[in-house]
């Protein structure tokens, strides 16, 4: 008899344990889960096994190229479970006292020691190195190009970040440079109406007037009046008439690099390197140097009978006298025939007497006379030393010439006189005599300004006041609003785009020092205490 299937059995078209059976979809999914789990765990195991080399996997990005040697070594900069910034909100969470100096800073300072920003700032307001210099932003990222927020975190309330009893030396509240209302003051030189501390009488207006003549109807200064070698750098071009009036522009004297200055070879050869370096960074203008910028029109002539001769620059009166004595002595000795006669033709010397003594005495008198004339020419006249320089006790007069020095000279040059002592005590740079020029090489010690970045601009657009400046006391620095013409948020004025150039704090300021961090005050603080070999440098600091 055949098996009789019940209706229920016939209706059972599905296996009762169907839910226990997996499909290829489930099996594939489970296999892939296992693969991914093993891949993730395996990768981390491999990283762990690789030790130092594997640490790069945890990096949040490459460090800057200057630190690239330690890209794979976290512990060179990081301490375990210690924030890189002491201002981090995680300080307490990770078990550190808020505001305390971090061990990570010592790692930075082993190579980079830097002066404090201000001596009276609170310790807790002083960020740690990593708090400002943020790394892991790529090889080419700058870790010194900080955001304004880093600066205004204190500068928006200076008093709150100073030690007890200290008062703000600078603007108490600055929130941005963008507008005057945000607290950034004008340059101190202008805000406090200071005068140029330099001691060289210089009339910008006169020198920028074609012909450089005080009298509009007077004889103009032409290219024929200056040495041939100097003409080109003062604007002379081939084919130009030598009788053309000299028209000076700013670049005639203000040069970014010596390559532009084109001094005459002989002037350059006699110039101390310390005074005029052959090359500079180009950010600031090179100092005005007499030999390069002034001598062509202002030779230090001292004697009409020696028109081509001039005394060296930077000599104080006694040194000038010595120089002149030497000059005239040599000249007179060469001109006196008796000195050049053979010894045999000279009269037979009487014992104890020099046969040339009368002639020597004669030469001495002549030298003294000539030196007196020359000194008078140099110090009494208004076209040599006193034309530009001040003497002690007078650093404000705009009149050419000296007053005290001529009086002293006229009292005579006898060794017993006061004038002699005055000359004798003279030294190069001694402000007691001819006052050292003291032209500032940096006008903004707390800011940096790169003239080379602005060299495409017309000088007058910022320093237009120079065209009308007749006294050395004028500070020809433009106001800070002039800077804001470009260095401010972008805006449209009458449909024309304006400004938009960088205007963040670090565009002009350095935190650790001023314009030249490696020069002047604080520079020594940059020198690390311990010097290391290449091998030591590449290893973590214990």
């Amino acid at each position, binding site marked *: 008899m055949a098996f009789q299937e019940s209706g229920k059995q016939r209706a059972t*078209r599905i296996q009762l344990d169907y839910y226990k*059976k997996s499909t290829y979809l489930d099996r594939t999914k489970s296999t892939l889960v296992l693969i991914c789990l093993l891949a993730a765990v395996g*990768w981390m195991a491999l990283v762990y096994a690789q030790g130092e080399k594997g640490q790069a*996997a945890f*990096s949040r*990005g490459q460090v800057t190229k200057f630190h690239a040697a330690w890209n794979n070594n976290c512990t060179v900069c990081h301490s375990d479970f*210690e924030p890189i910034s002491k201002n981090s909100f995680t300080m307490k969470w990770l078990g550190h006292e808020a505001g305390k100096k971090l061990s990570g800073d010592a790692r930075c300072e082993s190579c980079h020691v830097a002066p404090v920003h201000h001596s009276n700032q609170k310790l807790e307001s002083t960020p740690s190195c990593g708090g400002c210099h943020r790394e892991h932003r790529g090889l080419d990222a700058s870790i010194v190009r900080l955001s*304004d927020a880093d600066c205004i975190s204190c500068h928006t309330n200076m008093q709150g970040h100073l030690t007890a009893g200290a008062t703000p030396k600078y603007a108490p509240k600055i929130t941005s440079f963008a507008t005057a209302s945000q607290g950034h003051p004008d340059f101190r030189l202008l805000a406090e109406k200071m005068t140029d501390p330099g001691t060289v009488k210089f009339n910008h207006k006169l020198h920028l007037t074609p012909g450089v003549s005080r009298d509009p109807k007077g004889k103009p200064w032409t290219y024929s009046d200056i040495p041939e070698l100097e003409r080109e750098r003062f604007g002379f071009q081939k084919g130009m008439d030598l009788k053309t009036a000299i028209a000076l522009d700013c670049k005639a004297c203000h040069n970014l690099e010596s390559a532009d200055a084109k001094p005459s070879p002989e002037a350059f050869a006699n110039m101390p390197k310390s005074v005029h370096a052959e090359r500079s960074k180009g950010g600031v203008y090179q100092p005005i140097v007499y030999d390069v910028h002034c001598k062509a029109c202002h030779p230090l002539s001292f004697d009409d009978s020696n028109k081509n001769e001039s005394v060296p620059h930077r000599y104080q009166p006694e040194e000038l006298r010595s120089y002149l004595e030497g000059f005239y002595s040599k000249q007179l000795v060469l001109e006196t025939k008796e000195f050049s006669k053979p010894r045999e033709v000279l009269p037979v010397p009487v014992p104890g007497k020099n046969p040339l003594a009368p002639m020597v005495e004669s030469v001495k008198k002549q030298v003294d006379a000539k030196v007196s004339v020359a000194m008078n020419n140099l110090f009494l006249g208004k076209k040599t030393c006193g034309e530009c320089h001040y003497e002690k006790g007078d650093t404000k007069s705009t009149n050419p010439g000296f007053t005290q020095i001529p009086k002293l000279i006229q009292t005579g040059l006898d060794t017993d006189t006061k004038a002699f002592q005055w000359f004798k005590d003279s030294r190069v740079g001694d402000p007691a005599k001819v006052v050292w020029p003291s032209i500032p090489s940096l006008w903004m010690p707390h800011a940096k300004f790169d003239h080379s970045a602005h060299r495409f601009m017309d000088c007058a657009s910022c320093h237009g006041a120079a065209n009308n400046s007749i006294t050395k006391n004028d500070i020809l620095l433009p106001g800070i609003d002039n800077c804001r013409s470009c260095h401010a948020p972008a805006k449209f004025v009458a449909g024309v785009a304006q400004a938009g150039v960088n205007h963040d704090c670090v565009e002009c300021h350095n935190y650790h020092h001023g314009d030249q961090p490696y020069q002047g005050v604080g520079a020594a603080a940059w020198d690390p205490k311990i010097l290391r070999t290449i091998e030591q440098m590449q290893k973590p600091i214990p």
Partner: protein
Amino acid sequence: MLIRKSNFAEHYPWVLASSVVLALAVFWFIFASIGHAEWPSGSSFPGFTFGVIGGLICLFEFLIWPRKKLRSWRIGKVSTWMRAHIWLGLLAVPLLVLHTGFRWGGPLSTTLMTLFLVVIASGVWGLILQQFLPEKMLKEVPAETIFSQIDYVSELMAAEASRLVRSVCNIISDSDESEKFSDDSHMVVGAVRNTGAIQGRVVVTSSLQESVPDSKPLYDFFNEHIYGFLKNGQMANSPLQNPARANSMFNSLRTKLPPRAHEVVAVLEDLCNQRRQIITQAKIQFWLHSWLWVHLPLSVALIVLMFVHIFVAMKYW
């Protein structure tokens, strides 16, 4: 999970809450970036907060896997979990992007973010597929069966058809595997029936037919085309996969058979139709579930690496 106008009220609280959190996060992020040259990083307070929230969301998202496995646990309805899974998962995207400060970072963080974005993208892809594929299956596959039973049902169909054909053609074979599903007097076949607008698969039980003379063409046709197709489906590479071609072939078969055998031909044609639907069902099931091949395994890797990231971030803060 379907997201329709008709059921949007159930999603609305999640959408609203996610939008509010997102708006607050963006506002905070922008506010914190004022005065900075770069966007706040993951170590800033807002960045860290977004990272913590994003990480917790990732963890919650991952927990839906054990939640689905452990259906007997009474910790909220699975549908509620799924709505939270969808909307919190989408909220995690902007939060974690803000956490990164729009930076990829190093190898680990880049891998993490890539995994996260792929996981999210695969989830969104799965969600999109779920919006229309079930409906498509309901319309096109009335003969739908349980996915894991497709092979079994196909084998059953082939056996039933084989018994029917052998009965009609008077072929006796003890070794036929169809016997394992059979008795001597009845046969059961699945059939698609319509009742009004409702269409579905039903089980039909009928007596075995007596043999029909001159039905050899049926037996040959069955062996050549039908049996392999019913049993192996797409793998048989049969012309019966094409409905129009199948119709033509069955019409041609009818002309070769006596009218008494036409009823059997109709049953066989119906079985082939069911088999085609099951093939369609398998394809739809593949698309409905295969996104999980990406979504789930990468989620596992993501969670593992996320914990490593948290540890390393704390160690080298």
